[in-house]
């Protein structure tokens, strides 16, 4: 078996064998249902309709890409790097016949797969639970918008994962890496709110770039610009993360 593929399978398996991963996936599934029920009660009581069924999955996606998914992705990335370093299980991979580059890449691929699974769960659950929200106009047409929004959300979420993997290289245990990652994420959010001028350079600005894709205005130039930012950041952080991982002495 190709060792890159072999270790990717192993990394995915390690992620999904952990109880907390399954717990987070359950939380991911429960939040859209609970929010839909609350929204449904709220709308019936007030007789107003701020959100309809076709908008609901987009609303939920915004909530997840800005809050829950960055947290879950960071936890997964930190677990795969500094968590394994702290548990001393990382060395059991490093003396197998696989280069460190392939180990690093397979861990990033497994984070990507984890993101896809999370987005798929949110997509399916929010789509179904959205049916309980009043207003079914344009539901079918909305599905294309949902698919677009959820698909393009993958890229900024992957950038979050790559960044968390880079931060994890500075720590020997997952708790420190997780705390610092969360602090950096919160600080970036605050800075981008207080100083909009520099927000374009902060990766947290792009967590809801899916809104550009489904908006009514043609913003192709802006989308391309942000895409280039995300790709550039990803390449830089991936390279820096691998450099530190490769130099790590166990």
């Amino acid at each position, binding site marked *: 078996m190709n060792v890159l593929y072999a*270790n990717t*399978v*192993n990394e995915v398996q390690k992620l999904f064998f952990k109880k907390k991963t399954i717990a987070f996936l359950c939380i991911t599934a429960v939040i859209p249902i609970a929010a839909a029920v609350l929204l449904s009660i709220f709308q019936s009581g007030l007789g107003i309709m701020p959100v309809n069924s076709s908008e609901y999955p987009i609303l939920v996606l915004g909530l997840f890409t800005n809050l829950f998914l960055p947290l879950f992705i960071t936890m997964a990335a930190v677990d795969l790097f500094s968590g394994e370093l702290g548990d*001393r*299980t990382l060395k*059991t991979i*490093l003396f197998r016949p*696989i280069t460190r580059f392939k180990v690093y890449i397979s861990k990033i691929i497994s984070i990507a797969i984890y993101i896809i699974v999370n987005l798929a769960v949110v997509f399916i659950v929010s789509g179904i639970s959205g049916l309980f929200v009043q207003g079914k106009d344009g539901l079918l047409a909305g599905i294309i918008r949902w698919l677009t929004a959820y698909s393009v959300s993958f890229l900024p979420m992957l950038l979050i994962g790559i960044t968390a993997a880079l931060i994890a290289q500075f720590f020997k245990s997952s708790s420190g890496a997780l705390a610092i990652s969360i602090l950096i994420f919160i600080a970036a959010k605050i800075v981008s709110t207080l100083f909009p001028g520099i927000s374009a350079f902060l990766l947290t600005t792009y967590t809801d770039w899916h809104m550009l894709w489904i908006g009514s205005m043609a913003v192709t130039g802006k989308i391309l610009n942000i895409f280039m930012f995300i790709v550039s950041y990803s390449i830089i952080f991936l390279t820096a993360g691998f450099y530190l991982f490769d130099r790590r002495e166990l």
Partner: protein
Amino acid sequence: MEKVLEVNGLTKLYKNNRGIKDINFEVYRGDIYGFLGPNGAGKTTTMKIISGLCRPDKGEVRIFGHDIATDFEKAMQKVGCIIETTEAYDYMSAYKNLWMAARFYDNIQEVRIHEVLELVGLEKYKNERVANYSLGMKQRLGLAAAILSKPELVILDEPANGLDIEGMVDIRNIITSLAASEKITFFISSHLIHEMELTCTRVGIVDNGSLIATGVVEDILKTYSSLEDFFIHQVKEERSA
């Protein structure tokens, strides 16, 4: 005799100026080579460099003729390792841990996993989570993972560390029977001289970061009453020089 492991001019100094200096030795096919030395002598540093866990400042390591710095995958293809402590994913069973290790190699079938579990005496506990294992059981699982791919060279760093007498005897018996039945070459580091005397065919003595003596155990025991005597004699001589 075929060289399985060649270590040439290996040097690595840490910030505190400790480490290893100009280590040179060879391990031949069929050897059970003991790398003997007191704690802090540089055994684990050497083992870590050989297995790719850290890099030397100078020198090279060749395994089956492949330089680990440039041809790591090929060099490690026929190697099994336990370095420092045996660690497994404790939220998984022994069986699942071994399956994950098996994926790195071609042609490891389920039957081989059962075979190694049987060999180290863990077949009965294969579906238990590793978190519930004793230290001895974890050490045996580590050995099972190290020999799973039918390696031709097994590198063991302090395999008897932390084990009780029964555990040490178990590990020794497993090593000697594997060397005989599966023709595996072993490179073992330890500070337990008596264990090394009972297990190894050749030894290298390391002290203060340098390899100070090597020899065939059988020949050494013709001159000295025990390996311990040889060790003490060599260390005294080196330190007084």
